[in-house]
Every structure is written in structure tokens, then in C-alpha cells.
């Protein structure tokens, strides 16, 4: 295992050291003293295991493909954005825009997530152990979001496709979001996935999907459009 200490090093030096370790064949990297700095461990395209021992700033693990990243602390805005495949686990809370636009892989936040979690997701899954903020799953296109706690206002607003499960209270559904019935198989699968990522979910979940009314313009539904824009 390679240990990289952030203290006294610039961000470029830290990310460079991670890259050099991977190029040298390393598969286990421990990053110490991250100090909530931004852009750590971004664009990692190999299936290596990276552990960051502390809080991180914005965009940690973003643009990655195949990485197995664990953050032993909280994360700022845009954690794991555009993840293609792999796993990003945040032990604490995450800021706004967690897992924005991911195409695949799993982002697991054991604490709470801020606003716009899973915005424009195009695949993969986002697991949230606590609550999620305003407009979670906004314009989501594929994949699933699992919120074990409460969902903030406008959850699933204008989503095209995909599924959002909420274990707690829903402050307010977003435009064109509808509550559907979750099957026993789906719930069993949810429990298995949550357990696998160290999150204890609630006994029941509500499922939210797209009402598909915004897919096509229908002048009879002018009010829906008015509300959406």
C-alpha cells in the first residue's frame, strides 16, 4: 500500500503522486490529511482502491471510471460527479450535487446529502443513509437513488426515467413525479444493496417515478408546464 500525505503538498502534487503510484502498479492507496481540499483523486480510470482519511472539499473522485474510493469523513459539493463505474463511499455528510450526472457505478453516502443529489443521473446508483436536500434527482434520466431518511422539497422534479426510493418523509414531490408501488423483490434488492455498503435502511420505502407528462408537450396540460418552467 502506498501512503500519500497531503500536508505540505499542493493539490497537483497529491493527485500526481496518486497517478504515479497507479502507474507503478499500486492497487491500494491511502491519502492522509486531506484537510477538506478540493478536487482530490479525480479522473481515476483504474480499478484501484483509494482511501482518503478525512474530510474532502468539492468534486472529490469526479470524472472517475472504475475507482473504489472511500472517504473517511464528509465531502463537499459534487462528490463523484460523472462517475462512469466503480464505487465511491462517503462516511459522513455530502454537500450539494452529490453524484451529479453519474453514468454508472455506486455512490454511497452514509450521512446526509445536500441539494440536487443525483441531478441528471444517467445510470448507476446513489445510496443515501440519511436525508437528502432540495431537488434530489432533478432531471434524472436513468439509474436509482435510495434515500433512507427524509427527502427535501421538489424531489424527482422533471425526471425522465429512473427510480427514487424514499424511506422517510417526503417534503414535497417535484413536477411530474409520481409515487408508485414497489415490489417485494425490489425492496429485498434494496436491503441487500444497502447492507453491502454499510447502510442500515428503514423497513419500508416509497418509490417515486416519472409521471411522463413532461415527455411530450400537450396543451391540455399547460398548467403542468407552467409549473415546470
Amino acid at each position, binding site marked *: 500500500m502506498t501512503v500519500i500525505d497531503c500536508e505540505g503538498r499542493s493539490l497537483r502534487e497529491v493527485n500526481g503522486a496518486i497517478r504515479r503510484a497507479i502507474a507503478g502498479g499500486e492497487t491500494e492507496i491511502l491519502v492522509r490529511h486531506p*484537510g*477538506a*481540499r*478540493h478536487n482530490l483523486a479525480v479522473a481515476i480510470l483504474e480499478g484501484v482502491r483509494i482511501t482518503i482519511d478525512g*474530510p474532502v*472539499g*468539492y468534486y472529490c473522485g469526479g470524472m472517475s471510471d472504475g475507482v473504489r474510493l472511500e472517504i473517511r469523513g*464528509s465531502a*463537499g*459539493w459534487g462528490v463523484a460527479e460523472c462517475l462512469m463505474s466503480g464505487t465511491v463511499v462517503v462516511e*459522513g*455528510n*455530502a*454537500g*450539494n450535487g452529490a453524484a451529479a450526472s453519474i453514468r454508472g457505478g455506486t455512490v454511497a453516502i452514509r*450521512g*446526509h446529502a*445536500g*441539494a*440536487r443529489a443525483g441531478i441528471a443521473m444517467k445510470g448507476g446508483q446513489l445510496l443515501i443513509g440519511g*436525508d*437528502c*436536500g*432540495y*431537488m434530489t434527482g432533478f432531471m434524472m434520466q436513468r439509474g436509482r437513488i435510495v434515500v433512507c431518511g*427524509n*427527502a*427535501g*422539497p*421538489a424531489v424527482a422534479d422533471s425526471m425522465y426515467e429512473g427510480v427514487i426510493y424514499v424511506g422517510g418523509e417526503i*417534503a*414535497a414531490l417535484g413536477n411530474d413525479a409520481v409515487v408508485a408501488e414497489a415490489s417485494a423483490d425490489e425492496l429485498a434488492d434494496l436491503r441487500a444493496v444497502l447492507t453491502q455498503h454499510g447502510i442500515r435502511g428503514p423497513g419500508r420505502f416509497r418509490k417515486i417515478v416519472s409521471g411522463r407528462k413532461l415527455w411530450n408537450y400537450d396543451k391540455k396540460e399547460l398548467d403542468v408546464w407552467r409549473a415546470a418552467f
Partner: protein
Amino acid sequence: MCGIVGYLDRSGSVDAPVGAKVLGMLEALACRGPDSSGIALWGAPAEGLVLRVKVGEQGDPARAREILRLAGRHGRVQARATGASIIRFEIAKADAGALAAAIEAVASGVEVVSMGRQLQIVKRVGAPTNLEAEFGVSHMTGTHGIGHTRLSTESRVDLSHSQPFWAHGTPDLAVVHNGHITNYHRLRRGYEQEGVRFYTENDSEVIGVYLARQLARGASLQEALEASVRDLDGSFSYLAATPDEFGYAKDPYCLKPLLVGERDEAVALANEEIAIHAALPGAYRAREAGAAAVGVWAIPRRARHAGRSAGRREIAGRGLDGPGVLR
């Protein structure tokens, strides 16, 4: 961008090293705002009013003497200190409004930057390191403070346009803001028709004016912050404080970041965790504030109210204890 930070020492001591804490937090956010930086700090109550007056953008010893001479007509001028661009003095028993008006009539560039029994604002163009060099803020003590690093987007870069903003006319109230108040011009026109003077073209200035008027009507800081979330439009995370309370408000769309970090002995607020990490080394609880979230902490007073700790008063179901609710 802009960096905003706040720090509350829960020990209740007015001798807590809040200046050093806020400076450390600001240095961590220096990259968010290279144009100017400033700190507002609430310390031990003075006998009279403490004023910090901008003599001019460059400083002018003759003008500084004239300001002190004029102030002397309104009350006995005590401890004084002259810096490059800001002079500080304490004045016993004076009418705050008349005093400020008299001082600001000396020349067009003269502005009372802060006034209060406990509030002191220091600010200047450039990085937080300059703030330390000119004012020695790391040695300033108090119960709580807020700070700002500015990246100017619309109005000019000078001392007056720097933050924190003292809410002119209301002793001891100050604000720092990250974001953009989009109904600024409409609000400002309304206030100007009521006779309020604006000192800058900076939209953030309107927040202090707004809060001052809410408080003057008898609203608590909590109520004023809640009302502001409805009445201010645009993107904002801002911090506001008085000698008794310390709080934040966030816009209903969560367009600007604001993290709340807490530990038993302190509260640290900032729009990036790197600043909270600087203020609270070791373990702490940190969470992004929710939509339209408002939080207020009472300032503990060890001397006056023994044993009282800084409690957080936050509305149920909003802010940190639950998901934000859009109102």
C-alpha cells in the same frame, strides 16, 4: 464566489481568540475572494461607542485630525488609534446618528465603517494576510466574529465596497454575504424613498439595511432572517450577528454553499469545509444547510449569565435537523 466565515466561541469569554480563528478561516478561503477581505468581531463592551472611520481610500492625517476634532464636539473622545486608511476611537455618550452624519460630512470619501459598543470591523483591499499586517487581527479577542473574502462581480473594488458591512445607523449589527441579491435595485429604490442612505453599489449592502429595519420593528434576529429568505431574491448564503446572537440564512434554491460545523466548544460557519477544518482541528459535525434554512445561536455570557451555554434555535423541520422546506 466570495468566502464567508463565522466563528462563535461557546466558552462565553470575551477574551476568546476569535480574531485568530476568523483570520485562519479567511486565509483558508483567500482563493474564493482575492479582491478584499474583512473581519467583524464582537468583543468586550466598551464604556461608550467604538467607531472605525474610513478616512479615505489612501489615508489622510490632516483629515483624520479633523474627524477627531469634530467627534470631540459630540462627546469625549477616548482611546484612539490611526491606521493607514481607518482610524479608531471611542466616544463616551453620543447620539449615534448625529455623530455619524457629522463625521461623514467632513469629506465625500469619509465613511463610518463600524460603530457599536462591542462591534469592530476591519477591512481592506487585498488578501487576509494584509488584514493581519495592518490591523493585527490575530490578537483581537471576543465572543464571536464573521469574515469575508471578496471576489467582486459587479461593483468596484475599494475599502467601502468590502465586507463585512456594518448596518449603517444600527450599532453592533454586521453582515457578510456570498451571492447576488437580484431584487437589490427594487429594494434599494424603496429604501431610498424612505430616506435611507446607501454607501456603495454593492448589492450585499441591502441585507444589512433590511435586517436593521426588521430588528427596529421589534423582530428577533431569527424572525428577521426568516423574513429575509422570503423577501430577498437571488442566490445567497449570508451570516449576520449582533452582540447577543449569531446566525445564517440560505436562499430557497440552495444556490450558494454554506456549511455548519459544530463542536461542544464552538460553532464554525463557512461556505467551504476547508475553513471549518482550519477553525476546528480534529473531529466536528458538519452539514450543508438546507433550502431556506435559517439558524441562530445565542451568545453565551459567562460573566453576566453564569452557566448558560450557546443553544441553537432552529425551526423544526428546516435547516440542519431535517430537509429544507421551500416556502
